[in-house]
């Protein structure tokens, strides 16, 4: 059994930040679905817990000036079932709906996923392709991180221990842009073996810009920049999409994993990138 913990329930961001500043060893409780597992397995034994679920206004989804703002304690089920998210950023709704099961989606939060920086998590590739920003606060400062600079390694992010994630902001794709998310797991909705997201802008049948990201293969989600380079300026024929998917297969790092063959994972990167691009292109063209 773990040692008795001090459990704090701040009701505003400022008090939460003060608690994190005063107690170096304090750990934030958001949805608690990963944290509970870590404490029960004895991997960590937190002495001080700061539960952020009672902070007013830290959850919720709204859209303003083409930016969807999702508060840190918004749970996956809320994101999955939000008509605003489904309509504006379908790739995010898809990724939310593929996290674990209903009970866990009712508890787990978007801020928790960001801060935990699990390399197999389902939101981060979507954050990367949308160029989302992750917002965090300390007693002294409000910090903004691009998704690309936020994820830095195996369960590591750019956050320091005193920072509290407050929200994620995602630019809404415009009419000629599309997004998509794909995931492969051993069982439906299990932890990803590989996941992939795509964002693409199409004007007069030509790709003007695109971002492709892959997660689950190494210590952090990665942008597939060579793959994107194959598509920009192309007319998005099947051969262009296939060439981009093959480029992603070549460039995405695969960390060795004794349970999954590397060649298989490379093939799955190619397959998921192709699927995600195909759907994103249809959405950009208004066909889906």
């Amino acid at each position: 059994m773990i040692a008795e913990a001090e459990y704090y329930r701040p009701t505003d961001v400022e008090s939460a930040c003060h608690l994190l500043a005063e107690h170096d060893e304090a750990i934030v409780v958001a949805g608690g679905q990963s944290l509970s597992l870590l404490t029960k397995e004895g991997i960590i034994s937190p002495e001080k817990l700061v539960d952020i679920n009672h902070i007013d206004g830290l959850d919720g989804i709204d859209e303003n000036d083409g930016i969807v703002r999702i508060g840190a304690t918004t749970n996956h089920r809320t994101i999955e079932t939000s008509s605003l998210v489904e309509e504006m950023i379908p790739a995010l709704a898809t990724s939310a709906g593929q996290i674990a099961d209903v009970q866990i989606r009712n508890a787990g939060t978007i801020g928790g996923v960001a801060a935990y920086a699990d390399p197999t998590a389902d939101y981060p590739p979507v954050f990367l392709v949308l160029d989302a920003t992750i917002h965090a606060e300390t007693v002294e400062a409000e910090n903004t991180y691009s998704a690309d600079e936020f994820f830095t390694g195996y369960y590591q992010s750019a956050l320091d221990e005193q920072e509290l994630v407050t929200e994620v902001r995602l630019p809404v794709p415009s009419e000629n842009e599309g997004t998509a998310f794909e995931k492969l797991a051993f069982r439906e909705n299990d932890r990803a073996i590989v996941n992939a997201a795509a964002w693409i802008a199409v004007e007069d049948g030509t790709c003007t810009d695109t971002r492709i990201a892959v997660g689950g293969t190494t210590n952090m989600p990665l942008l597939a920049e060579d793959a994107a380079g194959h598509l920009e300026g192309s007319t998005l024929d099947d051969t262009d999409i296939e060439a981009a998917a093959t480029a992603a297969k070549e460039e995405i790092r695969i960390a060795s994993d004794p349970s999954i063959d590397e060649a298989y994972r490379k093939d799955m990167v190619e397959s998921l990138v192709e699927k995600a691009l195909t759907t994103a292109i249809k959405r950009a063209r208004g066909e889906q």
Partner: protein
Amino acid sequence: MTELTLHINGEEHEVDVDPAKPLSAVIRDDIGLKGTKQGCSTGVCGACTVHIDGEAQKSCMQMVGGVIDDEIQTIEGLAEGEDLHPVQEGFVEEFGLQCGFCTPGFIMSATSLLEENSDPSEEEIKQAIHGNTCRCTGYTKIIDSIEYAADALNENESSETTSPSD
């Protein structure tokens, strides 16, 4: 230890526990409601499913310190006296259980689904019980049980709205 007040099945319970203790363990050991089961204790099997503010959650994955302001409902809170909840009746009528260990968790997931969606498709039922594991039934009878409950709830509703006294 910390003194906490929990709201379970409409009653207040005072407990003196480590606030990081899993809710499932508090419900069983400190409050003595043994209907909620602890199976895997790792958030996989769903036997510990309860409602927290009306939503199905796995009580082994919640620290008790986080739920003191919430309304918690366990399997013991469903029946009214001797009258079983329609989902419980469905499990009896359609033989939705064999050993019964997973049943409270399935019933809590199913009641949460039917409160949101009183006429779910088979696919929606499967999604709702995705986080619950049964090692006896093969799930078919569980799905039948939930469909039985949905039909019963919808019949009640339609008989209420078409009541001659209206």
